[in-house]
């Protein structure tokens, strides 16, 4: 065995260690048809107060359907918390606790420790917006991942602090406008780049982390089910358009989310123990402008004859091209499991729409 190979094996041995069972095998080719694998339990019920077309509300419903009834949730402060639980009402049909903006992962750690102490298998989920995850709750999240709690953390990424009225976060894309990164004579929206959170998460050696999108619900649900089967920390970031903050029509939520994936700006990838194991290939790569033009937050980039706008469009295109190159997102023409296959995904031969 070469030195590099041996080192690789020792490393993966170490990552698998921690007194846990090895990763469960993917349940391939089971008798379930995708229809039978459909949800039977709605953990997040209707009647909550999200805006029309809220991507976060849709994403949370999909996650809950796949997670099933035997879960409990720690929810960070943010839109999801506020619109689901105006006292004395609650849209949650599973045990749910909201503590603070920055501690969902730590509260979940305590809940998980409690379940362990009680000998119960109830899976603990932690939910946060991008503010509660990329920014203020980042330390607690990192601690939870490092301590290897059996928790699925889901970040509903609407790329700004929406609950407080659309302020920039470290997840806000470059040059998008928010109320704290407005465009003006001196500025073209946010000056900095969207943080590559998934890479940082992956650096914690955790068993599984992935990005998903509300535009690809079956893919999203498959990822949730896969994460649910792992005894250890797992992480999902779900791209969730916010019609209010991104300034697009409520009816366009899915279309906007789809174009984000199809232009390469929001790549859908799966990372296991630090290595990218799966990506959603893009059959027909769109130019980023197809994505930008639907949203008011990028309106300043779409003005004809503005050299600064042209430059920023080029920057964003370069970012998309970078993602496509790094993750190898270019799909082959008739690949049945790429973005053109709607909900189907996978290069590793996994069947579409299955767990």
């Amino acid at each position: 065995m070469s030195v590099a190979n041996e080192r690789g094996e020792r490393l993966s041995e170490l990552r698998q260690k921690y007194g846990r069972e090895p990763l469960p095998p993917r349940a391939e080719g089971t008798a379930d048809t995708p229809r039978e694998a459909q949800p039977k339990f709605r953990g997040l019920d209707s009647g909550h107060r999200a805006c029309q077309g809220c991507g976060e509300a849709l994403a949370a419903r999909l996650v809950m359907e796949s997670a099933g009834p035997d879960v409990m949730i720690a929810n960070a402060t943010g839109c999801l918390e506020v619109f689901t639980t105006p006292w004395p009402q609650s849209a949650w049909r599973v045990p749910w606790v909201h503590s603070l903006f920055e501690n969902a992962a730590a509260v979940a750690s305590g809940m998980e420790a409690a379940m362990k102490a009680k000998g119960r298998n109830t899976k603990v989920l932690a939910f946060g917006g991008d503010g509660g995850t990329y920014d203020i709750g980042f330390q607690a999240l990192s601690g939870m991942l490092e301590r290897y709690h059996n928790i699925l953390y889901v970040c509903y990424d609407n790329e700004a602090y929406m609950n407080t009225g659309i302020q920039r976060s470290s997840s806000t894309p470059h040059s998008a406008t928010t109320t704290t990164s407005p465009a003006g004579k001196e500025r073209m929206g946010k000056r900095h780049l969207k943080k590559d959170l998934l890479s940082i998460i992956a650096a914690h050696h955790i068993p599984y982390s992935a990005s998903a999108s509300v535009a690809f619900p079956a893919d999203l649900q498959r990822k949730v089910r896969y994460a649910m089967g792992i005894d250890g920390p797992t992480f999902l970031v779900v791209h969730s358009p916010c019609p209010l903050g991104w300034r697009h029509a409520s009816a366009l939520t899915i279309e906007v989310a789809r174009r984000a994936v199809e232009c390469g700006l929001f790549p859908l990838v799966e990372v296991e123990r630090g290595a990218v194991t799966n990506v959603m290939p893009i059959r027909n790569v769109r130019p980023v402008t197809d994505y930008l033009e639907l949203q008011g937050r990028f309106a300043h980039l779409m003005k004809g004859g503005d050299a600064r706008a042209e430059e920023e469009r080029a920057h964003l295109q370069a970012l998309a091209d970078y993602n496509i190159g790094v993750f190898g997102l270019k799909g082959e023409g008739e690949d049945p499991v790429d973005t053109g296959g709607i909900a189907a995904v996978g290069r590793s031969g996994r069947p579409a729409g299955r767990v």
Partner: protein
Amino acid sequence: MLEALEGSQAIARAVALCRPDVVAAYPITPQTHIVENLSRLVAEGDMHTEFVSVESEFSAASVVLGAAAAGVRAYTATASQGVLLMAEVLFNIAGMRIPLVMTVANRAVSAPLSIWNDHSDSMAVRDSGWIQLHCADNQEAVDTTIQAFRIAQETELPVMVCMDGFVLTHTMEPIALPEQKEVDNWLPPFEFSRRLDPDDPKSLGTLVAPDFFAEVRHSHHGAMLKALDVIAAVDRDWEGLTGRACGGLLEVSGPAEAKIGILAMGSTLGTIAMGMEHRGPDVASARLIKLRAFRPFPAEALRAACDGLDHLIVIDRAISPGLGGVVGTEVAAVLADVPGAPRIHNHAMGLGGRDIPETVYTDLVAAIADPDAPAFSIFDADLQKLAPEDR
């Protein structure tokens, strides 16, 4: 049986006797020995708990919040900067009325950086809605810790057990620890009525609009006032089991006919009592009032304790800059409408670990005679060390 134990070690042993299911803590002087001792008990298999070694005090408090909310007994400990880093979570725990126990190894708050004892840390979260109990010695700290788990459970409120950093945490004393069986019989299994339970799902920590908020606060305030009786009853019950009481809400000692009273919290009272014992022949004796429950504040018991006093010296181990002593101000408020109430002399001392000598007793009593003395002073501040304009 008595054992010679360091305060922190005794606390760790007492906590272990209460069998918490989840412990989360982050090290900070002078609390560190408590976490270290707990870790050792876990490592040696003498304590079975999910020990969550968190990345900050903010997470320590959040972890025990989540654990207790999920229905198990939880414990944490901290001090000083740790208390302040936890502050947001502490208010949250209390607002949700989640029962759990925390030890505060009282220490000054930076700046200037000081690792030494005073009460600024727990005072900073005075209004968080936690029960706050102060311990005069390590035996009391042990007994109060065990009692705290029962008080938390019976009141569904969080309990902070305050003990003076170093003065207690790092001091060896002969300590009586109860038997495991005794504690098992005395402390019922953990119950939390609003726990997160998949069989009966509830939402905790929801958004409350102005139409309900005042009622939440009213009910919290009421629960704190009701806790007064629970604190006193649990201490009596403990006395029934062990023969030792910690003074209930407050404890009065010294001659009944004394005209001067001295009130303090924590270990300071022991120093004062020694000073009284060793005082000169011309120095008056005093009634000593050990305030054990700082929150809820035992107003009625305090009024009774002050009956017949002409002067009451209130010792603070923290200050509210621009006002004066916190305990002194509160005592004055409670006695304000009492006819013939004693005159209050409020002094802060021992800030940032400044040693409080026994002789302070005589100095305090002498200061009463000074008609020009300000209503509040930092008693042991050496003004010669300051620039003239700061004196």
